[in-house]
């Protein structure tokens, strides 16, 4: 599903964010990418979304070499890759329903599909009663559920989550992880960058650890760190 071959990312000021990273993720896997701040986790996620170009190396996503993807195809790549962020990225002047519908609207889905699928997905994430609320009326955990619903409403093959629990308290984080686990069980490949050791240890899934831009550990059913 995802395969990187010796990708290296060097920023303009010659900061090396990633160096010779080889990672292969099979369809339906759940992978944690862990490491301290500045270890290259976010860069890795951005490269998979083609928000940035690797300096060297190739990246294969869903069978396509995205390092050499023409710009006009990028939107179609992103329709297969859902994304969730630490800061939710919801639109404050749109309701919960409208925020999720927006993702379908702007890729040209017809109204009847939107009206059927959005309540369905919001019920799945446990917000079936809050369709008409605005983001500011929701708790952080609820806002993150809306953002997950938006990422998943188009049934992407891959879900990328960059520190999705970074702004949430531990018990809310557990709820969000349960939701991501459910989504993973539908066959969606999930890649989650985090430095939340309690969550990683509790889930016992594959762990890829980055440090200084290099893979220092790739372990099935791992924990956050040997020392933790």
């Amino acid at each position, binding site marked *: 599903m995802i395969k990187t071959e010796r990708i290296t990312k060097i920023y303009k000021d010659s900061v090396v964010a990633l160096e010779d990273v080889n990672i292969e993720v099979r369809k339906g896997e759940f992978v944690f990418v862990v490491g301290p701040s500045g270890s290259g986790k976010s860069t890795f996620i951005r490269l998979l979304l083609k928000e940035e170009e690797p300096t060297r190396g190739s990246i294969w996503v869903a069978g396509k070499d995205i390092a050499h993807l023409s*710009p006009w195809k990028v*939107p179609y790549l992103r329709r297969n890759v859902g*994304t969730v962020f630490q800061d939710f*990225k919801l639109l404050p002047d749109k309701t919960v329903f409208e925020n999720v519908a*927006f*993702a379908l609207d702007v890729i*040209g889905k017809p109204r009847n599909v939107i009206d059927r699928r959005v309540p369905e997905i919001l019920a799945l994430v446990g917000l079936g009663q809050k369709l008409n609320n605005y983001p500011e009326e929701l708790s952080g955990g609820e806002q993150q559920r809306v953002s997950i619903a938006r990422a998943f409403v188009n049934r992407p093959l891959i879900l990328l989550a960059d520190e999705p629990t970074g702004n949430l308290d531990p018990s809310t984080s557990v709820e969000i992880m349960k939701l991501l686990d459910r989504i993973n069980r539908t066959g969606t490949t999930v890649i989650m960058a985090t430095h939340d050791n309690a969550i990683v240890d509790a889930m016992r899934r594959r762990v890829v650890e980055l440090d200084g831009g290099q893979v220092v550990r790739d372990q099935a059913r791992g924990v956050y760190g040997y020392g933790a």
Partner: protein
Amino acid sequence: MHRFGYFFRETATALRRNALVTFAAISTVFISLFLLGGALLVERQVRLMTGEWAQKVEVSVFLRDDASAEEIDALGARIAEIPEVQDVFFENREEAYQNFQELFRDNRALVENVDSSAMPQSFRVKLEDPADFPVIRARLAGDPAIDEIRDEQALLKKLLAVTSVLRTGVIAVAAIMLISAAGLIGNTVRMAVFARRKEIAIMKLVGATNWFIRVPFLIEGMVEGLIGGVVAILAIFSMKFLFIDPLRGRVAFVPSWIDTGEILFTVPILLLTGVLIAAVASLLAMRRFLEV
């Protein structure tokens, strides 16, 4: 269909949001297109005043009323033999009257009081080189059938010389104003993009195509150009009703004035210019902001 609804709603919201800058952009488009339309119409007016045929012939040889048919035939043969002449045709009283009616269409009293018998017969001569008028005059001098030889280009040249300076000036001003109009439209588009940068970021994230993101901003710019063009056209029509219509038939040296037909001819030019300039300005304004 709902896609058009989306674009329409987005455009309306965007135009409301930056009312003042939008107003500045539209007024600049309006003024520049009004000037451009004026320049086009001045040219049309000059053509009307000189008559269509005057642009096709260089020399008119008017005949004396008492010239006989033999004299006329002989003169026609003489003219045709001159090497500098490219073409010559005879205009009888009836044809002259038709041209007269067309030229003085706004002066009905005059047209009604004159009939074809008052019209002179003439030869209309087309030259290889318009500068050869003195040659023709010298060659034909003294012919008994001739009343007058007139250089038709002389008046046209004078009028065109005056109006072309005027027209070039007006078009230059219109062009400068169109450039600033493009800048202002670009600015309103840029402000609209900036106001919606969060939405745009999310649209890119969920896989909206660049064109889908651009179209509402493009429409916004083009609507500004279109409104400016429509207002310019309305202003030109008002000028016609307020200033030209009252003058019709009252100015001796202007036998006919431009009318609705000539103004309609400028409508597509002004609308297209406005919309195209606005489209280019909007796309240029977005290029930097909406990269993947």
